[in-house]
């Protein structure tokens, strides 16, 4: 489904992108995500396709605002039944309960929203939205404020809706893990679309530094292009000359290398490094370790500071300790190279 929308209030916004399957709409707060969803739902005046000009009541959409907006005076099944006005009496209740059952909530049918957990509230709201048989679901931050189990339940419910009911879901979020489960990504900032496409493609090839930062490239290394040795661009940084995949650039071009904390790797000194990667090693010291559930975050201090994130089982094998000297490797295929104007915008903020 092709979406082309333009609106002026409450903020100027113009976008054109495709929504297929589960499409994540990523962007910082204030980028216009909620505004776009509301416009698509018909709650804000906008021009474009599809649906423009139709009132919300007539659009084949299912809309979930951030708090999910369950009716507090109705039980879970009555909330779902609200979306089924064409049915009467026992039929209506039966169909509403069947929808709850599909989302694993049959046992919560008689409960009021205030008695449900955050994840259950979102799932009831999803069931209610789907009961109308929409062609497009519009979900605003469906996992915001949820703990891990609740968040995973909501994610599974979204995937269920998309896979079993063939509905498209446009999901506004800044939850990167949620975005990683999406089929497609659309990255929005200041009312403009920075990049959109299949999820893998956008993750591996962010077109700008801004997109890269939104996608979790937290380590940014400024430098200058010093040469090209196919297929690598060589960039002089404070950590020496690093190689990144990219097209040739004039010598002296200011550049920024970006890498995800998950993709900075600790060198295993007992194993030989591939020559391709050997040039990209940096020596330094592990400064601080933080355990974050199944993930360990490490601060690396060398000629440049780097943030590392490794699964706990890797840490169990490596046994990193604070104060310990180590080498890290920035594999060229994990390094994203950005040049000139982006480097300029990087230094300006």
């Amino acid at each position, binding site marked *: 489904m092709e979406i082309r929308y333009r609106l002026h209030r409450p903020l100027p916004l113009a976008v054109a992108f495709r929504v297929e399957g589960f499409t994540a709409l990523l962007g910082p707060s204030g980028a216009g995500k909620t505004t776009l969803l509301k416009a698509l739902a*018909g709650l804000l005046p906008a021009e474009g396709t599809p649906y423009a000009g139709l009132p919300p009541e007539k659009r084949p*959409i299912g*809309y979930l605002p951030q708090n999910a907006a369950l009716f*507090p005076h109705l039980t879970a099944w009555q909330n779902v039944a609200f979306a089924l006005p064409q049915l009467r009496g026992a039929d209506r209740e039966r169909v509403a309960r069947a929808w709850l059952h599909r989302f694993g909530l049959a046992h919560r049918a008689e409960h009021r929203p205030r008695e449900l957990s955050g994840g259950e509230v979102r799932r009831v709201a999803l069931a209610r939205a789907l009961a*109308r048989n929409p062609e497009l679901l519009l979900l605003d931050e469906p996992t915001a404020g949820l703990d891990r189990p609740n968040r995973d339940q909501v994610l599974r419910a979204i995937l269920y809706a998309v896979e079993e009911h063939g509905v498209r879901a446009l999901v506004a979020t800044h939850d990167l893990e949620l975005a990683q489960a999406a089929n497609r990504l659309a990255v929005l900032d200041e009312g403009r679309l920075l990049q959109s496409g299949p999820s893998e493609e956008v993750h591996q090839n962010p077109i700008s530094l801004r997109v890269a930062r939104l996608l979790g490239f937290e380590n940014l290394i400024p430098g200058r292009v010093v040469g090209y040795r196919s297929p690598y661009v060589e960039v002089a940084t404070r950590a020496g000359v690093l190689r990144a995949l990219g097209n040739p650039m004039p010598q002296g071009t200011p550049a920024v290398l970006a890498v995800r904390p998950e993709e900075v790797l600790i060198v295993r000194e007992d194993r030989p490094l591939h020559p391709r990667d050997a040039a990209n090693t940096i020596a330094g010291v592990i400064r601080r370790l933080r355990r974050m559930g199944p993930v360990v975050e490490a601060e690396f201090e060398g000629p440049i500071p780097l943030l590392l994130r490794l699964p706990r089982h890797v840490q169990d094998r490596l046994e990193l300790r604070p104060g310990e000297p180590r080498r890290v490797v920035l594999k060229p295929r994990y390094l994203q190279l950005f040049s000139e104007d982006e480097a300029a915008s990087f230094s300006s903020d």
Partner: protein
Amino acid sequence: MIEVLLRSLLLAAASAGLLLLVGPLLAYLNRRAYPGRTLVESLLLTPIALPPTVLGFYLLLLFSPDGPLSRIGVPSLAFTFPGMVVGAALFSLPFAYTAYREAFRALDEDLLETARTLGAGRLRRAREVVFPLVWPGIVSGTLLAFAHALGEFGVVLMVGGNIPGKTQVASTYIYDLVEGLEFTAAHRASAIMLALAFALVYLTRALEERWRSATGSTDRSRSR
């Protein structure tokens, strides 16, 4: 005594009923900001700071046989029961209006918008979303106005004139008793008013509590 008490109850019921007719509409219209809303709301709430005698005085001028209303053909309401109803309603308006306004303000805009996306037109939204969520606030506001009108003294004295058998109500009756040093009768009547007032306020508070626990907030982002 019984007759006076009944007239008080009738006055309270009529003025609360009058407020129930116009108050919720005013509160609904003032739900969203517009230029001049502060001015309009201040006018509606002014009686709260006005000496009852001042309100009564202006009403008397308005209602008098040669007042502006008479000139456009409205029969004089000075020293009549309907005049007292209007006066008590105006004087209780701030109480009722504040409660009505809170009820509409607590209405989550997301609920109405989501109801629209679920296919509910204006009538269904009013009947199935707005009404069930605001009625407790409207009931409690009306009860409060009723209780306030039941105890009103200044306005009803000015507009009604405390005419026995015609416009005398409990509050003005008790005033007469005390002035005539009839303390036993004054005690009896006052005790009845005290019990009535307490019962009404208690009922209002209990309703508000039940309403709050039945609906709660819709923002359930916390997990358990």
